């Protein structure tokens, strides 16, 4: 099997498992308990907090452990909204291609009377700091823009946007779920007030994430209970998962330079190979892009059948077609970068990691080429395109 869906989730690393297993088997104490077993768990928890803080260039008391990226996103947005509301500021700026954790939280805030501006992300999948500066109004309380897009991997100019927000006195949140562990992240240099991350996107476990909140920003609770995480995120801490995530993150940061270079080379080999398929188009900027992300649209075919046939060849991938999501519309990300519906249905995302080899990449290229060719052979849309009865969108 070739696992090429690392943006969906990653295989837990040895380091993550080694950190977790003893805590599941022996060190199972509640970190709030006074006896030694509990206090040992507390030590592990605080060590993990220090590790995560170091990886982000934050302070340990700015790190809140959550159940994952979606919870961190929701809490960041609701916190900024509550803080804004107190000053009579009820306008939020974001982009059209955010993760649904952000877009749906914004929907909820709109129902509470907030106004939301979603910035255009252009054909290359990038927003600019100038767009943000122009969109900021006197009543803007928050800008929330993802560090890297989960589907097309484009990396936004977060430091430049952070500088704009700082200058205008607007809170800035970034969903860095796809970026952390893959590219350098620095909350101080970026001047972000809130940042979300998720453990399972960098070879840590599922069900655990982090909300970074700059010191002085009091989080609004979205879960109520005890005093854990200074009362801002109650619930008994999942110490094994938190420690697994911290171990995976520490390892990812240590190996980042080497892994990035290696995975970027694999990515570019894959892009070059797939680009040879006629009427295929890369989605998103080729340079401002996560090391492991490859995303193409193919004319004349539909994504789900492509995924099923790749699965038959042992290749795990994903698509932005409507059929893979169970909804009528294809990926909002592909629509946001201007892909028409009929082409967005024929998309394929392959996301790589450092364990892959050039031979894996060549196997994927051969498989995708064969399957796209086969599906086009039975497609009436492809026939129409070839016979000139329909126009190609991708030349």
């Amino acid at each position: 099997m070739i696992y090429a869906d690392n943006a969906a989730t990653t295989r837990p690393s040895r380091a993550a498992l080694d950190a977790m297993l003893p805590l599941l088997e022996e060190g199972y104490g509640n970190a709030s308990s006074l006896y030694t077993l509990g206090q040992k768990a507390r030590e592990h928890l605080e060590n993990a907090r220090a590790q995560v803080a170091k990886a982000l260039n934050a302070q340990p008391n700015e790190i809140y452990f959550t159940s994952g990226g979606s919870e961190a996103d929701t809490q960041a947005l609701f916190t900024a909204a509550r803080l804004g509301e107190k000053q009579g500021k009820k306008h939020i700026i974001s982009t059209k291609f955010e993760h649904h954790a952000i877009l749906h939280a914004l929907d909820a805030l709109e129902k509470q009377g907030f106004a939301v501006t979603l910035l255009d992300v252009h054909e290359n999948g990038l927003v600019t700091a100038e767009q943000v500066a122009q969109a900021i109004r006197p009543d803007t309380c928050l800008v929330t823009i993802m560090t890297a897009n989960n589907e097309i991997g484009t990396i936004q100019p977060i430091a430049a946007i952070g500088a704009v927000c700082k200058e205008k006195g607007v809170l800035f949140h970034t969903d860095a779920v796809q970026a952390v562990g893959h590219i350098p992240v620095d909350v101080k240099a970026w001047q972000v007030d809130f940042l979300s991350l998720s453990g399972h996107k960098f070879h840590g476990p599922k069900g655990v994430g982090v909300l970074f909140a700059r010191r002085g920003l009091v989080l609004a609770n979205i879960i109520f209970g005890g005093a854990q995480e200074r009362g801002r995120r109650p619930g008994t801490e999942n110490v094994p998962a938190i420690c697994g995530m911290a171990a995976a993150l520490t390892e990812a940061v240590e190996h980042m330079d080497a892994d990035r270079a290696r995975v970027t080379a694999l990515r570019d080999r894959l892009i070059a190979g797939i680009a040879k398929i006629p009427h295929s188009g890369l989605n998103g900027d080729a340079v401002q892009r996560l090391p492991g992300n490859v995303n193409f649209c193919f004319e004349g075919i539909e994504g789900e059948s492509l995924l099923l046939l790749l699965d038959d060849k042992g290749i795990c991938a994903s698509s932005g077609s409507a059929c893979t999501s169970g909804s009528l519309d294809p990926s909002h990300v592909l629509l946001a970068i201007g892909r028409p519906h009929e082409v967005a249905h024929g998309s394929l995302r392959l996301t790589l990691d450092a364990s892959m080899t050039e031979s894996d990449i060549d196997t994927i290229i051969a498989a995708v080429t064969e399957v796209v060719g086969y599906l086009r052979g039975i497609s009436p849309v492809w026939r129409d395109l070839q016979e000139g009865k329909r126009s190609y969108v991708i030349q």
Partner: protein
Amino acid sequence: MLYSEKVMDHFRNPRNVGVIEDADGVGEVGNAKCGDIMKMYLKIKDGIIDDVKFETFGCGSAIASSSMATEMIKGKPVSEALQLSNKAVAEALDGLPAYKMHCSVLAEQAIKSAVQDYYEKKGIPHDSALFADLECCHDHDHGAEE
């Protein structure tokens, strides 16, 4: 698994895939915008479907539904093919997920559309009400059971 073994079999090894150049009736339903189009080609001799081929742009269940539907009408009288319901296609595939039922509807409609084309080309009188609700992407609801 998302699909039954039968769906996967018809998806992996679709029956009657291709084109009939001198078809007596051709029907196309669906919309590329919605992610599925089915095209059916019929060869009809003495009121019997002598040959049938299809081309499909769509998901696994769309390809499997087209394949199964062609098998169910091949060698049958045209009048019988018109009776083929989407439920019968889905049942023959050992079921489809609820949000994929529209794929079987498209298969039923593709056949009706091809028969309608045959009737019109040959000037065979027919009840146009039979073909009243053909196609249209925005009428079907991917989330509902048909």
